[in-house]
C-alpha cells in the first residue's frame, strides 16, 4: 500500500522504527495492581498479539498507551511521544476499545463524520471505510440498534478512518462467531501486509496466536513472554506419546522402572514424555504387554498458554 522503507509513518521525520514502546508501566486501582511494571516494545509492521487471561491487565495497558488512563509509573509512547501529545492522532493510531463506543442515538455515518472532522480527514474517507467494513447500507441507522458484529465493524471503520500506520485493537474477537473470527484474522493479516503495525489483545490466546507473528503474554499485570510466535511454539508445544494398555498399572510400572517419564491419566491412558512411540512399543513387546492405542500427541498452544499463565489468574 505505502512504501515504508525505514521511515516511521508516525511522524514521518524520525528514522526510529519503533512505534509503541512501553517502559516500566504500572497502574493500581484501589491498591490492587492492574499493571505492574510492564516493559516491552511492539515491533513494526507485524501483527503482535497481546495475550493474557481475563483481568491480566491488557485493557488497562492499552488505555494507558492511548492516553485514556494515566499510569502511576512508567510511560507509553508512540514513535517517542505520549498519545496525549499527538495532534490529529487518528491519522497515526487507529484504536478500538470496549471503553470507547459510539453514541447510541447517532447514525454510523454521523459518528464517522464527526470523527473525521475532528482530525481533518476528508468526508470521502468516511464513505471509503464504511464500504471497507460493509456498512454502507446501514450507514444511516443509529449505532445503538446495531448487532454486535455490526458494532465491531463500525469500531473497525473508526479505527481505519485516518489510514493510520498503527492499529491498537482491544479484544476484537470477543463475541464473534467462527466465521467472524476467520474474517477478522484475514483482515489483521492484510493490514500487516500493508505495512501497518497491528497490536491486538485477546484472552482467547491460541486463537489469536495463530494470526500473530509476535506474542506478548502477560498475567497479573506482569510480562510472561515476549517472543516470536515461532519461538513460542517451538518452546512450548511439546509432544508426548499416548498409550492405552490392557494392563495400564503394570505398563506404567515397567515404563517408570525403564527410566521413562510416564503419567497416568484419568481416562485410563498413559502419557509418556521423553520417549518415542517406537521405544514405547519395543518395551511393551519385550514385556509381553498388549497395547490398544499408541499415538504421538502434540500439546495444543492453548495448553501451553494455560501452563504459562496458570499461576496468574
Amino acid at each position: 500500500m505505502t512504501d515504508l522503507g525505514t521511515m516511521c509513518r508516525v511522524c514521518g521525520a524520525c528514522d526510529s522504527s519503533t512505534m509503541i514502546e512501553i517502559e516500566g508501566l504500572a497502574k493500581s486501582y484501589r491498591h490492587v495492581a492492574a499493571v505492574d511494571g510492564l516493559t516491552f516494545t511492539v515491533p513494526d509492521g507485524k501483527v503482535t498479539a497481546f495475550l493474557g487471561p481475563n483481568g491480566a491487565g491488557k485493557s488497562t495497558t492499552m488505555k494507558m498507551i492511548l492516553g485514556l488512563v494515566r499510569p502511576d509509573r512508567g510511560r507509553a509512547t508512540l514513535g517517542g511521544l505520549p498519545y496525549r501529545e499527538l495532534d490529529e492522532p487518528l491519522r497515526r493510531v487507529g484504536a478500538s476499545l470496549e471503553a470507547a463506543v459510539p453514541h447510541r442515538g447517532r447514525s454510523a455515518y454521523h459518528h464517522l463524520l464527526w470523527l473525521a472532522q475532528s482530525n481533518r480527514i476528508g468526508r470521502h474517507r468516511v464513505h471509503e471505510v464504511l464500504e471497507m467494513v460493509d456498512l454502507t447500507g446501514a450507514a444511516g441507522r443509529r449505532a445503538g440498534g446495531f448487532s454486535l458484529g455490526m458494532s465491531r465493524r463500525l469500531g473497525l471503520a473508526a479505527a481505519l478512518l485516518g489510514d493510520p500506520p498503527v492499529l491498537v485493537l482491544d479484544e476484537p474477537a470477543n463475541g464473534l462467531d467462527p466465521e467472524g473470527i476467520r474474517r477478522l484474522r484475514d483482515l489483521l493479516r492484510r493490514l500487516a501486509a500493508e505495512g501497518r503495525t497491528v497490536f491486538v489483545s485477546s484472552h482467547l490466546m491460541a486463537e489469536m496466536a495463530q494470526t500473530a507473528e509476535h506474542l506478548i503474554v502477560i498475567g497479573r499485570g506482569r510480562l510472561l513472554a515476549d517472543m516470536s510466535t515461532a519461538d513460542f511454539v517451538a518452546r512450548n508445544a511439546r509432544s508426548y506419546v499416548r498409550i492405552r494398555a490392557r494392563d495400564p498399572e503394570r505398563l506404567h510400572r515397567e515404563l517408570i522402572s525403564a527410566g521413562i517419564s510416564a503419567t497416568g491419566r484419568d481416562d485410563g491412558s498413559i502419557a509418556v514424555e521423553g520417549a518415542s512411540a517406537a521405544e514405547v512399543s519395543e518395551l511393551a513387546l519385550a514385556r509381553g504387554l498388549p497395547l490398544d492405542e499408541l499415538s504421538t500427541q502434540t500439546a495444543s498452544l492453548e495448553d501451553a498458554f494455560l501452563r504459562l499463565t496458570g499461576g496468574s489468574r
Partner: protein
Amino acid sequence: MTTALLRAELTKLRTVRGPMVALGLVLAVGAGIGALDGLSARGAIESHNPMLRPDFTAEQAGLVGIQYALLPMIVFGVLLVTGEYGSGMIGVSLLAVPRRGRFYAAKLTVGALAAVAVTVPATVASVTVTQLALGPYGTSPLAPGVPAAMAGAVVYLTLMCLLTAGVTVMARNALVPLAVLLPLVMAGSQILSVIDATSELSRFLPDRAGAQLTLVEPGAGDMGPAAGLAVLLAWTVAALAGGHLALRRRDV
C-alpha cells in the same frame, strides 16, 4: 482549539435528538409562556382583578417567558455533556482529541453558541408575543430598558447552560445536575427566598442572581444587573473550572 474541533462538536450536537429537542423547547416555552402570560395579564387588567401583581409593568411582562425557558436550557446543558458520558462516547472523543482542555473548550464553545443562537430568537419572540397578547396594554419591544433586559436574558440563559455543563462534567451523569438544578430553579430558590433565615443568602444563588439581568427597572431591594452578572459569572467560572479539573484528572 481549532475550527476542525468546533465543526466536529457541532456535528455531534446536531446529529442526536435530545439536545436538539431541548433547544427547540427553549424557543417554544419562551414564546408560549410569553403568550399565555400576556393574555392572562390582559384579562386581569380588563377585569380589574386584584390578583394582578402590584409591580406589573408591560415592559417586564415580556421577559416572564424566558424565566421558564431556563428549564429546557438547563436540560440542554445536561444533555450536551451526557451525550459523552451516557454510553462510553467519551472514550471515542478522547481518542480523537486527546488534549482534554481542547476537547472541553470546543464542546463548551459549541454549546454556548447554540445557547445564544436559540435564546436570541426565543427572547425576541417571548417579548414580542407578550406585547401582542397584551394588545392595548402592551408596549414596544424597543421601549427604554427592554432591549438591555433582552440582552441580559440571553447572557443569563447562556451562562446557566455553561454552569450546568460544568456541573454535569463533574457528575458524569444526568441525575445529579437535574436533581439539584431543576428543583432549585423551579421552586427551591423561591422557597428559600421567603424564609427569613435564607432569603438574604438565596439572592446569591445562580438563578436568582442571573434573573437580575432580565430586570427592565430594578427595584429598591434588587442587587441589580451588574451585581447579578458578577455573582452568576462567579458560579459559572467555578463550575467550569471544576469540570475542567475533573476531566483532566480522570481516567476513562
